[in-house]
């Protein structure tokens, strides 16, 4: 399948048999509309936001071997499979939209946008209504702001929760322990 006509396409990546389309955040909605109407991706299966703060970038960050795109080659003596370092990431956050084509020719594609902290991205709720809760979850847990979402509130955490728990700088055990005798 060819994705050349997708508006705002920055680059295409083929890995593990999956296609990732990195798209310019400013043209995300346009790209999604194109994929839905022209290519037939009628279902938005999932929206997954990731935080890459502290993503390993130098040999000192990594102990042991790193995998290779072809799997693990640990038979090369002394290499531990160390063929390359993790690929550097353009910005801190990624938001991946997993699209699915429900038809006789099923297909999947991942549309990905990269964002700096606080940088908003347009909501795709008009393209796929199912984005409603997925976007609220990404906002709640990762702090991604979706512009144009009619009800961007917390969904899994309490309404008055501080911080976004799935960010890498949010510690495990960050919730203060409250005892019953405490005022």
């Amino acid at each position, binding site marked *: 399948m060819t994705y050349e006509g997708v508006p705002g396409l920055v680059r295409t990546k083929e*890995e*593990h048999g*999956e296609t*990732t389309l990195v798209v310019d955040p400013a043209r995300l909605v346009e790209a999604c509309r194109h994929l839905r109407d022209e290519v037939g991706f*009628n*279902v*938005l*299966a*999932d929206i*997954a*936001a*990731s*935080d*890459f703060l502290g*993503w*390993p970038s130098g040999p000192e960050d*990594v102990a*042991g*071997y*790193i*995998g*290779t*795109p*072809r*799997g*693990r080659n*640990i038979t090369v003596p002394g290499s531990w499979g160390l063929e390359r370092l*993790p*690929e550097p990431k353009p910005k801190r956050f990624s938001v*991946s939209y*997993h699209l*699915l084509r*429900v*038809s*006789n020719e*099923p297909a*999947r594609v*991942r549309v990905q946008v990269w964002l700096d902290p606080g940088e908003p991205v347009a909501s795709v*709720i008009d393209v*796929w*209504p*199912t984005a*409603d*809760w997925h976007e609220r*979850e990404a906002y709640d*847990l990762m702090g991604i702001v979706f512009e144009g979402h*009619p*009800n961007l509130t*917390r*969904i*899994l*955490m*309490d309404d008055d929760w501080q911080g976004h*728990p*799935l960010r890498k700088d*949010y510690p*495990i055990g960050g919730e203060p322990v409250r005892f019953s005798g405490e005022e």
Partner: protein
Amino acid sequence: MAIAPRRKLYEGSRIPFPIPTVLEVPDEIREQGDVLQVNFGPNHPSTHGVLRLIVDLNGEEVVGMSAVIGYLHTGFEKSMESKTWWKGITYPERIDYVGFQNNELVFVLAIEKLLALEVPEKATWMRMLLCELNRIQSHLVYLGTGALELGAISMFWYCFRERDMILDLSEMVAGTRMHTRYFQTGGLAEDIPSGFFPEARKFVEWMPQAIDDYEQLLSANEIWLERTKGIGLLSAEDAIALGQSGPILRASGVNWDLRKNEPYLAYDQVQFHVPVYDGGDVYDRYKVRVDEMRESTHIVEQCLDRLEEMEGEPWIVDDRKVVLPPRHELHTSMESLIHHFKIVTEGYRVPEGEVYVAIESPRGESGCYVVSDGGAKPWRVKFRAPSFVALEATATCMSNSYVADLIAIVGSLDSVMGDTDR
């Protein structure tokens, strides 16, 4: 064509606007001043856990609705980032605690996809067998509790009787009744015990007759038909737009099953039929699940046929960098001892990359998005929870319905709150 709805359920779309998951009270009804707001849940027995619905009632009629979730949020995804890959396998089972075996599978498949591991045939078929048993078990929980909420108390006892048989089989294989952690990266944690096959055969022979009994109790039951037929309508177009999957989508007339359309494990080598109905109501969701139980029993039978021929074959891949060495080698081989020590203390490393794996769980498309930095712990794990997506359809299903239908509709969406809130 996968989408071939044979019946038009309603004109246009019923998805509320501007918020697709919130049914807002129309102004003309609100101005009459008789609207009563009722808090339904989170501790209501028919919410299947801790779902909270805020319902606006005009008499008996539901005129507004919004769902509040998150009461069972336990931060599984965050916790998994601090556990090694192989310790993380215990988490997904507890996310969807009813369809545990399928959820365990999706995470293990994601790790194996990154590692590019070839799993032995015996493990593949055993995984398929256990996932199908789990599907039956999950549908039995749906049917038992769903019918109980509508007053058919005896269904609960019958369904849980057969459910117990399945859990006994689980116990036989893995030692625990639920949350087995039997799927290991590369295959199975242990060989299949020799007494398993005759017991499983007994179950396969028993089950079709039990399903006939359920249908006799419900399919001609006037109260059940009244409470379920034409209730909670969801058209094929709306179901697609709301990202629905699994039995809900198939009850709306869309012939879509990942086991057929994107076969994983060895589903392309077994014979089964995908039940599709076009009523889009609570009754058809019940029909789809009952038919699926029959098909799953049939798949289990075929798996047993194959597995019985595989006596003595390996159940896990022989890759010492990922899989624990056989126990007896630890006493004689230095190399094995080192491998064992490294895997247990540090864990195995998984090549850098990102994958999304989706399987057909009892509730629909259960997906797992995993990012690895090449280390011994996942960088990011995200589950595409079918229950979470199913609850998005509540507002659409609820239009033009009465408060009593609400119980039937929520039950028919069959969401597990652990899966919804993660």
